[in-house]
């Protein structure tokens, strides 16, 4: 069986592209290509990563301009075909702005950029992105964002919860949902959600920053591994 091909999408201002590329190639051992934002054809790839950064400088709303990029047409097309799309941090914001994921991401309640490790609880492991985790498992992952407070109006929030679309929640180290464990004020402690179909995943924490022991946590690695394994099973 061949290698799984990941596309790492690069917008002007993306800055976690090299990190995602490194994890896929060097840690996971699969194939990766950088795809410049002007490209439209993503059909050669099995998985698409929208990495973090400050696409187009984020001078407007985060992600609001990236969603107009030609590459987002390709992302939309591949997502419809059922390929796996993951948006990390700014990538999550872009997916939300593009309407590929529901809800909105607002400025952190403390109005500060925050770069630190947080704890996350796995809420649903029945997805292509989380099947290598246990349900209820507590992970340690870093966040690095200014606009990561997840918001959705009550009806949407209810349907997200009902469909088990919330995959990760901020928690304390014991997995308890305590107010002080919520770094940005997200509703329902939401750190990551998946679309209804289950193939588009967005999360604020950075799994690529904790995929090796030397970086003090490996808890993010199984997200990439889950994607690759799941894709291999389909091929």
């Amino acid at each position: 069986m061949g290698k799984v091909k990941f596309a790492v999408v690069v917008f002007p201002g993306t800055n976690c592209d090299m990190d995602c590329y490194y994890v896929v190639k060097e840690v996971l051992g699969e194939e990766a290509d950088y795809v410049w934002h002007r490209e439209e054809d993503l059909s050669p790839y099995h998985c698409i990563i929208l990495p973090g950064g400050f696409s187009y400088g984020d001078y407007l709303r985060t992600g609001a301009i990236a969603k107009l990029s030609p590459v987002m047409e390709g992302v939309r097309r591949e997502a419809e075909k059922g390929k796996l799309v993951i948006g990390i941090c700014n990538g999550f914001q872009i997916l939300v702005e593009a309407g590929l994921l529901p809800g909105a991401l607002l400025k952190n309640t403390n109005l500060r950029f925050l770069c630190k490790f947080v704890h996350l609880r796995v809420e649903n492991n029945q997805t292509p992105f989380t099947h290598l985790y246990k349900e209820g498992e507590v992970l340690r992952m870093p966040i690095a964002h200014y606009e990561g407070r997840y918001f959705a109006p009550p009806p949407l929030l209810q349907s997200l919860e009902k469909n088990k679309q919330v995959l990760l929640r901020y928690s304390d180290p014991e997995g308890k949902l305590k107010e002080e464990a919520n770094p940005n004020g997200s509703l329902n402690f939401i750190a990551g959600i998946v679309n209804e179909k289950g193939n588009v995943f967005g999360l604020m924490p950075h799994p690529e920053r904790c995929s090796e022991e030397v970086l003090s946590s490996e808890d993010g690695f199984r997200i990439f591994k889950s994607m690759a394994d799941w894709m291999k099973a389909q091929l």
Partner: protein
Amino acid sequence: MKRPTYKELGLTRYEYERIKRALGREPNLVELGMFSVLWSEHCGYKHSRRFLKLFPTQAPWVIQGPGENAGVVDIGDGLCIAMKMESHNHPSAVEPFQGAATGIGGIVRDILAMGTRPIALLDSLRFGSLSSPRVKYLFQGVVSGISFYGNCLPAEEKVVLKIKGNMECISIEELANRFIPIKEDFPQAAEMEDVQILSFDMKTRSICWRRALKVFRRKAPSFMEVTTTSGRKILATPEHPLLAFREGLRFVNVGELEQGDTVFLFQDLSYPRPTRVLRVRDIKEERWVFDVEVEDTHLFLTQAGFAVHNCIGVPTVAGEIYFEESYEDNPLVNVMCVGLGRIEELQRGRAEGVGNLAVLVGSSTGRDGIAGAAFASVELGPESETKRPQVQIGDPFSEKLLIEAVLEAIKTGAIVGVQDMGAAGITSSTSETAARAGRGMELDLDKVPLREKGMTPFEIMLSESQERMLLIVRKGEEGKVKKVMEKWGLNYAPIGVVTPDGVLRVKHRGEVVAEVPAKLLAEAPRYRPKPVKPAYVDELTSFPTDNLPEPEDYQGVFLQLLASPNIASKEWVYEQYDHMVLLNTVIYPGGDASLLRIKGTRKGIAVKTDGNGRYVYLNPYRGGMIAVAEAARNISATGAQPLAITDCLNFGSPEKGEVIWQFSEAVRGMAKAASYLNIPIISGNVSFYNESPQRRVFPTPVVGMLGLIEDIDNRLTTGFKKEGDLIALVGETFPEIGASEYLKEIFGKVAGEPPLVDLEREWRANKLCIEGARMKLFSSAHDISEGGLAVALAESSILGKIGASLRLPTSMPPSYYLFSESQARFLVSLSPENLHRLEGLAEELGVPITVIGEVGGKRLYIEGERELINLSLKDIEKIFRFAIQRAIEE
């Protein structure tokens, strides 16, 4: 324009005569302007050069010492590290955090110019006392973010502009007031020159700078009033967009809002809160509204909240902050950048090869910052308030594009030289590259992409527009470089050709407007004012510190020290910077030095900045030595071997004898320590004139140090690791309270002699730490510095999340033992079975070690002849971690 005199340009009569003699004729205006910037203190090092010659700059591993864009060392495996530090003190006097976070353009370009990729930034910050409201504001770097774009905006709406090249974020009302000072009832408009506004180009779907041509002000006759369920009312014109949630965040015109819509309202300095629309109604009421006409597009953007982090994808991994009254008027913002590259891809700022092209890449040139280098070379006074540049936010987004584009261009192999275009812009970059190569250059100013019409050769040559670089491109291969610049949407402008004659010849509209030997520009005259020892030194150092009363409540004193902003955790700061991007940071900020791995090898580099201005103020020679010695201990405490130094020397006006005395003594001390410890100083920067009529900053040499560890598995961190580990003191404690944080915080005194320095002890203690790390003897290691042993112990406990108990092995009064800032010491922990080997190593190296306690439990316990401190780790941690946040919120 009236021709300015040499005096008005900042040159002295002596300098003018010298130029005349060298040229054999009167210089013309353009030439005079070129000399005035290159012979300024900032570029010419007129007062500092003779002292800087004392610095050791050589070692077998040094590839590039001072004199280039950055220093470079060999770290083996064909890899090298470039490093450089620079100050942003003067531009940052208004907004230090923006200055620190995003005004890093110049230093990043210096690293880039060596052909290395910037991989880490370090900030060294000095502010006034955190109890001052102004300092608090500056420190916090308050940025309120309101994101809208649209047509007719209410008065408080902010837009992002470049006015004469300075990036500003101001309300649209303020913009209108600047250009239409007199307010009338009828609609008004004014044309603007050299104003660019951040816009969105619908065709290319990209963000761009566009010329803002006109600003409008009018009264709008009618408004809509939106009432929300949370009880708030907003007034806006019907076409005013509001952020609402309709299947995601959308801008919806107020006129189209319906009952039940969710909208987000921004309150002052608060986050946007979702709320429901209860009612929308028309209101017939007049209000002022504003608009801006933009070239080609009318879609401009309003501020989306510049946070205090950087977005160029380079992690800010370490640094330090001190608060001291002397920095109140003149905060210091020093930034160090570190780059990684392959030795064979190293670039130099040399214009080699006659016939090769000098190409300007990056942003267009405007009238901004003309003679900014000269500005950095005067004291800040009352009238300089008006001279101060506007809050410069820099343009990190363009900077990031420039990084990627230049690195990609270097890979084409078509480039023979790279130079940052910083202070003195085209003049310095072309003359420096030509002078280094012993060549000349012929420039055609008609080829320089300009932002404004009608710029004179004088202005073009002296502009300091940011985000520009000079590339020397091999003749015939320019197509390769051009293609790369086009991909990244940056200007590619061949503005000159390398010539054999050593002359910088500048043409404008077919005429030669300047003709000067490049070498002459690079050789500013040197001055030698007489050093005068200031009277305060003897007065303050004679303060007796050997008989201070013992505190009644050691716990209270200990907690007060931990809450001192100079000692408390700087988490509040480093959490606001991305310190992880690029996946190299292996030891995060908060301990001694930060450690970055070098991917594809076992190696790592340790980086740290340091510089205690208080020590230098009281004894500049000793303080200079300590700056080097302490940085070295920070590096060794990670297990890395110190390799090289970059520095930034922040002082007052060099025209004053007292400042020259401080400077010469501090440099002498640094040189002595750097030579003894064999850590060459390979690049640096001098920042003079850090004074106002009221205050002069403490003389503050900041040392940025690089270390190398061969195997990152041997790295050491600050936090205790294991129950039952022994705690040992490496080195010796003397009753040295002079110049200490304890004396300042508890007795309110900045006085006494700073601790003694014994460089042989330093050398041996460092060696013990590095050897011990290699032998895997230690569980943790931590440099002992401000606040002494007690603070070091608290830090190791808090970071390790494990308690400790200590018994003082001394007859010294406990406060002296606990809070002394004696040098050449480390606090280490180790498992008991390693003690024997450590003792052996210590004996071999002649370093005293004393076992003073044990790791374990959830409390910090210290006893002397009686119990002195007995506190739960939780309580200590709370004070230590949140002291700065509390001080700001108070």
